Each structure stands twice: as C-alpha cells, then as structure tokens.
C-alpha cells in the first residue's frame, strides 16, 4: 500500500498562498474548443491567455530577452562614468537618468538584469529540480524515507527564508555561487512539499497500481508513470519559486548583503542610489520598478496558466 504521512506538514504561507483558489473552474466558463475551424498558432495562443496573462507573458519574455542581450544593446558600458550630473533626471542622452556617480541608469539596469534574472533562474531551477527529486523519492519509497525527508524539510521551512539566507551569509560570506545556493536552499522545501503531495496523489491512481501489480520497479514507476504527470504543475510552481527568489535576492542586495560591488543587481541599484530618494531621482525608482514588473508579470502569467489548466481539466 501507499504510505500516507502520519503528520500533516508544517503549514507555510508561501506554499499555501497559491494553492488556495480552487474555485475558478466554477466561476469561469470553461474554455472549450467548440469551433471546428482550424485556428492559426497566434489565435490559439491568444485563446489560451487572458489579457492579463498575455501581458504577464510579454513582460517575462521581455526581461528574459534583456537578461541575454542587455549588455549588447546598452548605450554605455556598465561601469562607465559618463555624466557629470549625479541623480540626473530623464533626458535624451540618459533615458532613465544617472546614478549617484553619474553613470547611465539604463545601462546599469540592462547589465543588472543578468544578475537579477540570471541568478534567480539558476536558483529556481536548482530548487525545483532538487525539490522534485526528493519529493518523488519520498512519495515512491514510502514509510521511513518519507518520514525522515519530511521532517528534515519541515525543519528547513521553519527558518524564514530571509533569516536562513542571513545565517548562511553570516557564515560563508556573500558570493555569487553562495547566493545561488542559499536561494535554492531556502526554496527547496516548498518544491519538495508540492512535488511530494502531487506524487502521492498520482501513486494512488489505478494506472500506477497496475504498474505495481505488473511488477515494475520503483525507478520505472517514478520515471515513466509519475514524473511525466507532475511536470505541468511543477512548471507553474517553478514560476512561483522564481518570483520568491527574485524578491529574496533583491532584498538581500538591498541590505548590502547580496551581489557585491562593482557588480550590481537591481536590488543593489536601489541601495546605491537611495540617497537620491529625497529628490525623487529616477535612479532609485527605476530599478525598483524593474523588479516589480518582473515579479508581477510572472505572477500574472502563472495565475493565468493555473486557471486555464484547471478549467481545461474540468471541461
């Protein structure tokens, strides 16, 4: 039989926040493809997304693109001192103003995208992969492996992510690999928990029971029967991890404990230019706006994906 957990896991605001809304399928008319006319790819894409979802997708794609080509299209080199005016306003030469040393803010943000988006992407991938692996392991192998893993990850989730990050940085200092590790570490438990519960549900389904009765090994069941059916929800979860990690890392950088100078992610850009706040300088507002658009865009995208996949399942 499938072993059920004896204790409910320690609840956690971060993971429960988005599992919450189970109602939309009822509230919204399900998307059923009634028209027999073949739609072209663009129309199908538009049909799958609501306006807000599409907006989210575009924003996320935009920032991903910027992370890859940003430094190539930046008007000035990253650290170049180009203007004598500090905390300059919006102008033709410096579209987003200049920072506390007179550097072009647009270029700083374009260069910073690599850190903010890139680091978060790497950390979220690590967290999701490792979390899924252990979640699957716990669900498939049952009893005491499950129990030990669950206890361990529950302990890890009981350290608030920012606090955990602070502890690790206090012990090991702040470097790019360390930041990636700590961000991943903070969000592995969430990914573990979701993948474990998904896998446990799948383990109870008939076709898995059939595979067991056929005498298939656990590895085969995990790889062929369970994992492919977890991919879709885990991808949505990956988006969430990404948002949380962006917030965590930029928060750390804002405290001066994240990406260290001369490199700068968007959080450090806000910190560097906080002196310009009293003048309302774009240098302090723009990087913050960049972070907010990235995370809000991702959230809108995920929200859209969740609703559509849910109503699709019901239809």
């Amino acid at each position, binding site marked *: 039989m499938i072993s059920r957990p004896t*204790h409910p896991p*320690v*609840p*956690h*605001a*971060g993971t*429960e*926040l988005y599992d*919450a*809304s*189970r*109602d939309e399928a*009822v*509230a*919204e008319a399900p998307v059923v493809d009634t028209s027999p006319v073949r739609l072209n790819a663009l129309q199908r894409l538009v049909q799958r997304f609501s306006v*807000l979802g599409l907006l989210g997708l575009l924003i996320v794609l935009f920032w991903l693109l910027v992370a890859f080509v940003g430094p190539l299209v930046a008007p000035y080199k990253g650290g170049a001192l180009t203007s004598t005016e500090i905390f300059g306003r919006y102008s033709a030469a410096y579209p987003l103003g200049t920072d506390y040393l007179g550097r072009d803010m647009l270029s700083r943000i374009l260069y910073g995208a690599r850190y903010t988006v890139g680091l978060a992407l790497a950390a979220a991938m690590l967290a999701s992969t490792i979390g899924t692996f252990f979640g699957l392991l716990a669900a498939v192998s049952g009893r005491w492996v499950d129990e030990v893993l669950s*206890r*361990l990850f*529950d*302990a*890890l989730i*009981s*350290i*608030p*992510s*920012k*606090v955990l990050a*602070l*502890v*690790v*940085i*206090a*012990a*090991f200092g702040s470097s790019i690999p360390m930041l990636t590790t700590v961000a991943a570490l903070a969000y592995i438990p969430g990914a573990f928990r979701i993948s474990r519960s998904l896998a446990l549900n799948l383990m109870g389904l008939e076709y898995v029971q059939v595979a067991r009765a056929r005498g298939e090994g656990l590895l085969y069941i995990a790889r062929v029967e369970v994992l492919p059916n977890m991919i879709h929800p885990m991808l949505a979860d990956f988006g969430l991890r990404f*948002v949380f990690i962006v*917030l965590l890392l*930029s*928060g750390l950088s*804002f*405290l*001066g*404990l994240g990406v260290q100078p001369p490199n700068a992610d968007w*959080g450090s850009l*806000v910190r560097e230019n*906080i002196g310009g*706040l*009293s003048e*309302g300088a774009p240098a*302090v*507002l723009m990087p*913050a*706006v960049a*972070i*907010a658009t990235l*995370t*809000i865009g*991702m*959230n*809108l995208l995920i*929200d859209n994906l969740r609703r559509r996949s849910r109503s699709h399942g019901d239809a």
Partner: protein
Amino acid sequence: MKAHAQRLIAARLGLALLTLLLVSAIVFGVTGLLPGDAAQQALGQAATPEAVAALRHQFGLDQPALQRYGEWLFHIVTGNFGTSMSNNLPVSELIATRLPNSLVLAGLTAVVSVPIALLIGITSAMFRGSLLDRVLNVLTLSTVAVPEFLVATIAVLIFAVKLRWLPALSYLSEVNSFGALLRIYAMPVMTLCCVIVAQMARMTRAAVLDQLNSSYVEMAILKGASPVRVVLRHVLPNTVGPIANAVALSLSYLFGGVVIVESIFNYPGLASLMVDAVTNRDMPLVQGCVMVFCAAYLALVLIADLCQIVSNPRLRR
C-alpha cells in the same frame, strides 16, 4: 472525543519541539561547524600555531562537534546565548532590549492588517467572478509580488519627502505622545501591512470559497436565503478555523518582512539587530537572533494549527 483533541494537541506540540530541535542543529551546523576554524580566522594567517591552539581551547573548539552542539543547546535552553563578539555584551541582554520593539511593530501590524484583510477576502469571495473580485485578485496578486523595499521607498517618497507628513526614520526615543507614536509607526506598519494584507486576503477568500462550494450552502441558497445571509450566517461560523489558520500563517510572513522594513526605517528591533550582526559576522548574536525568530515562527504555526483543531466542533466535544 475530548481526549482525542488533547492527544492531537499534544502531538502537535511534540512535533513543534522536534522541529525546533532540528532547526537548532541546522543553525549550529551552518554557523558553528561548517565555516571552519574560528580561532584561525580571529588571529589571522600570521598567528603562531601555539596561539591558535590556545584560542581554540579557549573557544572550546578542540572538543568533538557533538559535544559542542550539546553544550551550545544546553546553554540556549537555559537562556544563555553567549557574549556578542563586537561589543562583549551578553546576547540575551541585547535581544531582550530589541525584542519588545519588534513585538510592538508586529502587534500593530496585526491589529491594522487583520480587519482589512478579512474585509477584502470575504467581500471578494461573496462576489466571486464579479469585476470587483477580479480587480481585487489582480491587486492582491501584484502586491504579493512587490518587494517590501519598493513599498517602503515609495511611502518615504510620498509621505516624508513630498508631503512632509511623516519622518523618514524611526527614532523611538522621540516618542512622547500618542501623535508622535502614530507618526513614527505609520510608515513601517503601512509597509508591512501592504504585503501581509494581500496574502491574508487571498487565503481568507479561498477559505470562504471552500465553504461556499459545499452542499449545505447550496441548500441554503435553494431555501431562498439572500447571499449576504448565506455568507454571514451559514458560511462564516464554519470558516473561523480556516480563517484563523490563514491569519496566523500570513502573520508568520512578518518574520521575513521585518528584516527589510526595520533596516530601511532604522527601527531598533530584533531584525535590524540581526542584520547588523550578519554584517559584523558576530556569530553568537546571529545564532541567538535566529533561534528567537524560528521559535516565534514555530509558535505562530502551532497557534494556526491549534485554531484549526479547537474550532472544529467534532473534536471539541
């Protein structure tokens, strides 16, 4: 049945303590064991081996790891967190002076945010699918995704810089009247509320909707009860448990939020103490702060759990 509920509560309590023990092992492992030789670091590369050995003995670093962990744990349980490395004051004293400030901040945030969040959550659940619900959904979804420092920066820009209503930094020593108290706490509390309200409202909405989908609600609607009556009379009493759970869980988010907010407003709380400790690499202080944070977090989660159990009439009888 009452015995059953008590057993359940005892089990949760035991589980929380076990988790706290594991947390302490993780914290000690990360801060005490992994970083390597504290004595060597303290003395630098040029130190003689004898000096390093002497300091190692003084720090107790020549003991086996498990024994060091045991001693450390014993000290913490008895309230002795060691001495801060940067100013030689006892860590417990430092924490004791800062903790009340943080609790006041958290308490005020809770008092402000809970009613607003419940109002938003219940309203959007009552009118689900409506324009209002959708607008609130997008609003809360966006607020959750906005970093605290953006909210704080914008608040400072508007209220301290442009309007000059509020001070940009929190100096608690200047509190001498209720008005001054309000002025100082307004912005930190507002910032914390922003993020927490969104989270709490979403969870509340989900809890209410969960009940709205059940068959007794359908029955009430078929009977001809008005939507408001269905929600207030039939649904709300049944959602007290889940909502209390949601509130406690969202409040646990405060522990992350205060780290940023206290630093921005220079608020003399526990979180800013910890950030300073991390910057100075003051390990005993870091360990002490983390353990207090985690214990408080677990206590809140435990309360959330207990709310769920106590409010369930099937377990109460």
